[in-house]
Structures are given as structure tokens and as C-alpha cells.
């Protein structure tokens, strides 16, 4: 468990303490390496298409139609799930869930590992999650599971994910879907 990522095993790892920081504008992050955005998109598509129970975790910023961009992104995420043969488990809100989380139908940033364990998820995309909650969830997932995590972020990205794409808006999602279709064809999926 927890054998992926730059901090290796640590109860609660933090990539910044291993010298890994969010990628600069126009670039992406694959583990410790800063790479071109397209390179990262191809690797993300490959991992999602070849991992067991690949899942997309959409967050409140794309689940609720609070602006036109959110609505457009939500539509594209659904298309992305179809292309990647991925399930979708939403992160509706950020409250801790008591007395217990229903791991089949939702994920929560305070105990995201429960959802990943229960569904045996080996690769996951976090998208539309407010950055602080994404970072907390990604740290716990890296510490407690062997899931390959991917952050598709509208702002500066997340060094605690194994793959980070930053400044991702609907235009970039359209580009990713196009690349994912190419990778899917190459893999014969």
C-alpha cells in the first residue's frame, strides 16, 4: 500500500516536503517530473484505461450548475467517463459523514480511502473539488491506498496527486477527451 508517489510510505505524506511543488503554468506533473500538458494527458488516459475500476470523482464545482462553465464542464466530464470506461462517484459536499459513509454512492474528503477500498479503485480522477479539500483527500488516499490519483484542476494543481493537470477548463477538457480517444484506439479498448 501507499507505494506510489514521491513521499513513499508515510502515515500522512506531503509532497512539498519531498521538494515537489505544483507545476508552472502550461506544464503538468507526473509524480516528480514536470512534463508537457499533452504528455501528461496521454499518460492519464493510459492509466485510466488500463487500471481496475477507474473512477472519476466530480466535486461540487461541477456537480452544481452555479455558472455556465460549470454546466459545460459537467457535460464534458460525463463524455470523459464514457471515453475512459470510468465509473463516476460524486463528492457532493465536504461535511464528514456520520454515522457512516455510503461508499458505494459517494466519496468524502475526510475519509476518501473508505470509498476507494470498498470499490477496489486503482485509478481515480479528482475534478471540480475545491483545492484544499482535494489536497487533504489526496494525502489520505496516497497514505492509505494504492490508487493512482489524478488531479484535473482549474487553478494551480496538486502536487499530492500522482498526475496533475492545472488550469483545466472546458477547452482543455475537450482536448483531453480527443487525446483519450486516440489512446483508447491505440490500446484497442
Amino acid at each position, binding site marked *: 500500500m501507499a507505494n506510489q508517489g514521491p513521499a513513499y510510505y508515510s502515515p500522512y505524506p*506531503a509532497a512539498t516536503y519531498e521538494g515537489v511543488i505544483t507545476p508552472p503554468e502550461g506544464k503538468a506533473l507526473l509524480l516528480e517530473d514536470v512534463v508537457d500538458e499533452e504528455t501528461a494527458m496521454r499518460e492519464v488516459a493510459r492509466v485510466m484505461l488500463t487500471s481496475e475500476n477507474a473512477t472519476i470523482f466530480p466535486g*461540487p464545482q461541477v456537480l452544481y450548475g452555479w455558472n455556465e462553465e460549470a454546466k459545460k464542464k459537467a457535460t464534458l466530464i460525463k463524455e470523459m467517463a464514457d471515453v475512459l470506461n470510468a465509473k463516476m462517484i460524486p463528492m457532493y459536499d465536504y461535511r464528514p459523514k456520520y454515522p457512516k459513509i455510503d461508499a458505494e454512492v459517494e466519496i468524502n474528503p475526510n475519509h476518501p480511502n473508505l470509498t476507494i477500498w470498498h470499490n477496489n479503485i486503482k485509478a481515480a480522477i479528482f475534478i471540480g473539488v*475545491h*483545492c484544499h479539500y482535494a489536497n487533504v483527500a489526496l*494525502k489520505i488516499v496516497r497514505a492509505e491506498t494504492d490508487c493512482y490519483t489524478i488531479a484535473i484542476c482549474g487553478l494551480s494543481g496538486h502536487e499530492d496527486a500522482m498526475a496533475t493537470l492545472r488550469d483545466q477548463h472546458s477547452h482543455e477538457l475537450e482536448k483531453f477527451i480527443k487525446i483519450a480517444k486516440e489512446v483508447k484506439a491505440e490500446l484497442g479498448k
Partner: protein
Amino acid sequence: MSKITDMTKTHNWSGQKLVSIDHMLFEAPRTKHFMTGSEVLKEAVKRATVDASVSYPITPQSEAAHLIGELWAEGYVGVYFRGENEFGVMSEVAGCSMAGARTITTTSGPGTLRAMENFAQWSGTRAPMQLVLMARGINSPLTIQPDNLEVQYLLETGCMIWYAENVQELFDMSLAAFTVAEQPDVHVPIITAVDGFFVSHTREAVELPEDDIALHPYDPYAAPLPPIDSEMPPGRFLRDPFVMKSNYISYATHASWQWEIRSAVERSKRYARHLLKGLVHVTGNEDAEIAFVTCGTASNQAKEGQRELEKLGIKSKVIKLRTIRPFPEEELEEALKGVKHVFVPEFNVVGWLANEVKAKLYGKVDVNIHAGPRVAGGMSLPAEAIIQEVMEVVNPGKGA
């Protein structure tokens, strides 16, 4: 009085043209003025499109707080009021910031300690407000003299801490501070510290851009947390905190939360490097074997000591730390190449900066770190004291 609804894409509610932080700090023409630290802070706030400020009087920051109040009366600050005490002020500042307002406050000495619980709460809620700390003594018997022991109490609150040497740095830093604190991948509170009286009450030459420009407003929708509504999801975590529950997994969340806040402080480095033109400033002889590691006005005194040592044929250099949190380890290690003796002059009795330097450099560089000279309780730190400390090490038994 202007209203927040007067804001346009090009001008803020007081009619100032909105500009980038790079334009404000590096491109806009500047003219020379002669001002105290308190006055120059007013000038910075005037150009910062500040939504809210809360104040409570305590020496030596009272004047700065008062001057920010004048800005409200002049229509440059959206909301201004006096809190019931420093604890109340820091709580109210948190409320303003969490509601999405660019917020600033000031305090000093015992006021800092009265408000202490709030600083950890600020960082825990990822609210990017700014505290300008005009440091003074905190001990009994009561003192209002210059002393920066209180900074030690703030080191592990999760807030960023920058330290300005003089009024010019206070102006530039307090504008840059908002920008760095509000970056989505940083988004933690920032404490801009100066030594009380030495900076707050000393009139110096300062270069200022014109006051018809101001920073773009804060965008709370680029925050890593949603602007807080403590009753409604998704921002209900304050009302329903995970640590209050006995759920077996809550330790994971709380531990990760704390790591994440400290990660955010580390992420601030690249922005601060750009806007402060480096996390450390080095002056003196590049190939010196003696270095002073300093912050605040101790830097100024160390530079005086460095110049006097040069006259004696002894090469030294001053490495001024401009950020304490994040601590600039990499830059300090680089600046210490070839150095054999490090001295840490300070204005406090415990030597917190020397402790920091020792902890961060342990096992990394082969230098002798001398925790001194230091003075406390309002004493000045003359160059003679610095020279004497150095001579007792490099010329043992013979003194200066």
C-alpha cells in the same frame, strides 16, 4: 462615501485604476517621501483595495490602526471598526476574511498573545488575511519597548511570516503579502512583521508609486475553500468539525489538514521569490568566512558592524532573511558556502532566530553558529556589541 458596487473592471470603488502587483511593485514610477512606518503602512493599504480592517489600540501599532481608519473615512477601505479587544479583533478579522473580504489588521506585544488562539484558527480555515505585527516587548514588568520575542510564539501557527527591515520594505512587503497569501495554492494568512518603534515610529526616505493606482480586488471564488457559509454545505466544516467526532478516521483528516497547511506555506516560496526579489538578501563580501544571519532591524545593525569590520580588515557578510515562514533553507545554505562562523544578532532574550537557524542547518553545513549578540527589553544593539562578539570568537582573549 463610495460603495463596493462602484467597482468596475478597470477601477475600484474609490476611483483608483486597478493594476497588477508587478506593475505596482516594479513598473509604476515612484517619488520620494519622508515617512514613518505607520504612515507608510497607510500608504500601502490605500493602494491595496482593502475590503475590511478591524483595530484595537496597543502601542506601538495604535497609530497605524488609526491611520487605516482614516482611509475608511476617505473612502479607500470598505469596512472599518474597533474590536472589543485583540481576541475579538482577530476573530472578527477571520469572519471578514472567510466571508471573502481582503482584510488587514495590526497588533503588537501583549495584544498578540491575547489573540493567540486565533492565528492557528486563521491558518486552519485557509483565510488569507494580513496581520502587520509591530513587535514590542511582552514580559512583566510591563514594557512597551522594542523587542521581538513575540515572533517566537507565532512561528508554529501555520501562518506565513515575513520580516521587513525598514519602511520601504514594509510598504512593498505589505502589498506583496496580499498577493502571495491569496494565491489559490497558498491561501493562508500572512504576518508581516517589523520591529516596533524602530520602524513604526522612525521617519525614513521611502519611494512610493502614485496613489491613483491600486491592486485588483481579492477573488474569493479562486479560493481553495468555498467562501464560507457555516450553515450550508459545502462550507459547513466549521459547524460540523471532524475533530469533534469520535469517528475512527478523523485522525487522518486532521493530520492531513495540518500537513496541507504547511505545504501551502512551502508553496508560497516561488511567488515570494519573485515579488520580494529573493527570500534572502545578501550584502558585504561574497568570499567572507564570517556571516551574520538576521531579520528586521538587526540586519541594519549587522550591516553597520560589517562595514566597521571591513575597516579592520575582516571580511564579513550579512544574510538577511526576508521570510521566516516559509524558512528559506535553500537560499541560506547557498549563501553560507565558504563561511566558517555564523552570528545571529537579535532583539529578544531567547534567541529564537538562532534556534531556527541551528535547527534548519543541522547536519547540512559545516559552520559554527554563535547565538548572539542579542539584546532585549528595548536596548539598542550597537555595532560595537556586534564587533565585540565577533572579535571574541576570531581573536579569543584579546577582545575588540
